[in-house]
């Protein structure tokens, strides 16, 4: 018991800072134009997703390329709970996590018989099968292309029994009829789960179980030669990270009651992988940072149209202004993909280990400057040189 609740001082500080950063999002995101409810909800939700993915990938080294399947399963489970049972998010989330966990158990049980890229392709195959079927023949359950949505004539047994909800308007997910789950309250609802999820991950990273997973990552063969069966451990990690994905999917449905098949497509799985690597695999905070960065690009960079740019650069002389707008418009608006691609290439080339590596280097630089003068500066030069 002791090992679960005793945290190192460093962990406590990290946790407190992380919680503060998440809870203060509505303030510090203002200058970045990102402090509106939907994007902050997405930040929290995709943070949970990336943290969960990192438990599998960061600790065991197993690269799942089908994690979006659990996200989708969680969403479908949550929306069906809304439709059939109640608009309260709690049962929906419980159900989402359970369904995603069972789904992960089944897929993980089969896929973990193989390792390396064979494992990746197995998870990819399962996810793509889920997506293709959800989009087409499973339409009676998933509503295919148009997505699973709430309807006025849904039974909602529990709500009906307690006489909640109106007969005219579509209901909004709410906590015991008190707090509606859209807007800022929805964000805080998600943020609390992100913080809890972060805490649990921190504990897993520091626990013997986490050490075991790391040992499996560093040399699975040696582990199995000693007669040690690694599979229960990897499967546990797989299911836990699937449940995180299910929770994220459930929260997506809570804040916005729609579940679409595209959530399961390989591109969605790939996005999770990219978030994690971009931020820093195996670090606690890295995946969250990666998730925020990608979602920020997707939502904010894509919104800069030429009109906005013209206003932005209006202070420049006309000829230069036109040129600057033309060049920048290649990278924002409809060109936001290009910027994202460039960021991937640059970050991974110059910062192996992702954004967290960059952070570490900067911290190193400052600390060494504190140490002394001449010696430290040569060291930090070496540290910033591109790794090859």
């Amino acid at each position, binding site marked *: 018991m002791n090992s679960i609740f005793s945290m190192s001082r460093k962990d406590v500080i990290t946790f407190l800072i992380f919680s503060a950063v998440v809870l203060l999002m509505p*303030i510090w995101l203002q200058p970045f134009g990102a402090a*509106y*409810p939907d994007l902050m909800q997405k930040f929290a939700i995709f943070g949970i997703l990336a943290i969960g993915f990192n438990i599998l990938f960061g600790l065991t080294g197993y690269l799942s390329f089908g994690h979006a399947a659990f996200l989708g399963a969680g969403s479908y489970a949550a929306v069906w709970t809304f439709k059939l049972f109640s608009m309260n998010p709690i049962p929906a989330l419980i159900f989402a996590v359970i369904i995603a966990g069972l789904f992960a158990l089944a897929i993980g049980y089969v896929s973990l018989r193989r390792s390396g890229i064979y494992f990746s392709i197995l998870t990819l195959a399962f996810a793509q099968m889920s997506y293709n079927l959800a989009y087409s023949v499973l*339409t009676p359950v998933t509503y295919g*292309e148009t997505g699973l*949505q709430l309807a006025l004539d849904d039974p909602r047994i529990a709500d009906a029994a307690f006489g909640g909800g109106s007969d005219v308007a579509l209901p909004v997910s709410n906590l015991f009829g008190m707090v509606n789950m*859209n807007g800022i309250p929805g964000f805080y609802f998600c943020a609390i789960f992100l913080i809890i999820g972060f805490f649990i991950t921190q504990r897993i990273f520091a626990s013997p179980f986490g050490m075991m997973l790391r040992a499996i990552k560093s040399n699975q063969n040696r582990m199995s030669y000693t007669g040690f069966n690694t599979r229960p451990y990897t499967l546990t990690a797989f299911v836990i990270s699937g449940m995180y994905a299910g929770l994220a999917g459930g929260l997506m449905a809570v804040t916005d009651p729609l579940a679409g098949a595209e959530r399961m497509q390989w591109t969605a799985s790939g996005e999770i992988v990219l978030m994690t690597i971009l931020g820093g695999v195996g670090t606690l905070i890295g995946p969250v940072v990666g998730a925020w960065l990608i979602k920020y690009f997707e*939502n904010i960079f894509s919104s800069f149209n030429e009109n906005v740019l013209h206003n932005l650069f209006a202070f420049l002389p006309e000829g230069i202004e036109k040129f600057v707008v033309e060049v920048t418009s290649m990278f924002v608006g409809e060109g936001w993909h290009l910027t994202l691609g460039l960021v991937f290439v640059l970050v991974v080339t110059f910062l192996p280990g992702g954004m967290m590596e960059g952070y570490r280097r900067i911290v190193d630089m400052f600390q060494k400057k504190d140490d002394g003068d001449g010696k430290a500066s040569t060291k930090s030069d070496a540290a910033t040189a591109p790794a090859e």
Partner: protein
Amino acid sequence: MSERKDGPSRRKVLKGAAAGLVTAGVAPTILTSSAFGQEYRNKPTGDTVTLGFNVPQTGPYADEGADELRAYELAVEHLNGEGDGGMLNTMQPSNLKGNGILGKKVAYVTGDTQTKSDAARASAKRMIEKDGALMITGGSSSGVAVAVQSLCQEMGTIFMAGLTHSNDTTGKDKRRYGFRHFFNAYMSGAALGPVLADEYGTERRAYHLTADYNWGWTQEESMKNATEALGWQTAEAVKTPVGAGDFSQYITPVLNSGADVLILNHYGRDMVNSLTQAVQFGLRDKQVNGKDFQIVVPLFSRLMAQGAGDNIKGILGSTNWNWKLQDEGSQAFVKSFGAKYGAPPSMAAHTCYVQALLYADACERAGTFYPVEVIKALEGHKFDGMGNGPTEYRAEDHQCFKDVLVVRGNDNPTSQFDLLNVVQQVPRSQVEYDASIFGGDLGPYEV
């Protein structure tokens, strides 16, 4: 992008966090009070009114989205009294004065739907929550239209759909806050049927290849109903995966099926690929049952026709609008669009332009931006001079009823834009249907 991440020492971060915590309790109340202090969301208070244009900018429909955006920019220009005014001059009745909407200058924000429901909803939410958009419009697929429309219902924001052809948009998934000017799969079937009978006779066996998702199914069903009513038989209807790329495995069975017509219920790239490949299999040179084999593409667009190249020649289909129409409204629109961009508008551009103008006009007639009143002004509104003859926004399902064009791939194009010829302008009466046949429920005015 990493401005914040190059954080200073831990102590500084801690200090900042402590300072932030003090304000944390205050912040949410500030944000929520500004959202609920109004009588409706995003009520314009300054001298501008912001519209949100949500179009695909990445992904397979990016070109269509770019054309939609061009149309919106033109519409904004015209509404603000710049340019030659376009359809503002031909619209009947019109309350637009070229001084913005209700005297407020029109501003706009844009977003990328990526042709994905989640992304489209996220960017619509961004425009509503952050940019203060009063109305959302655009899109290039029914999945997106249905998803954004239901979001807008929840948010109490009017949604003027762009290109969406599924029966569901104004059928089982219709919403009080959603409006569609574009035609739908049922109308395609009803318009094409009689023309097909004229051209190919009433004794035909049709083979359907259908994109395996909601739109494809409604399209197939509508075409089946229309052709079977003429006396055609349906040899087979096969579902194909979306984005299959190579359709050869679905086309070969057509060869010996005894069918003499192939109906491709595909759109976008699927349609470009399946049509190209079907022609390569020599289907159009075949004789079956003593008749020439024919291919029909129920939903056509010029951009798709471009992708299919020569394979489109002589093929029948339907469209919402074509730039070669000779009526006054279409001509005015083509003239100002062509003068500004050097190319004629696509049908997606047309429907988006018209939707923007119709919304603005409804606000003027309602005398307010209050969505409930604007909705009431749009419901049952009859207008003319916008390209498809006399048109009505039916109150029961928010679907526009107007003439539908049956077109044929042009055998001798005079320019790269001259790809489709209008065969017949099918009158509105022939494509009308009872609003109740597709079910659905509009929902309440007040949300």
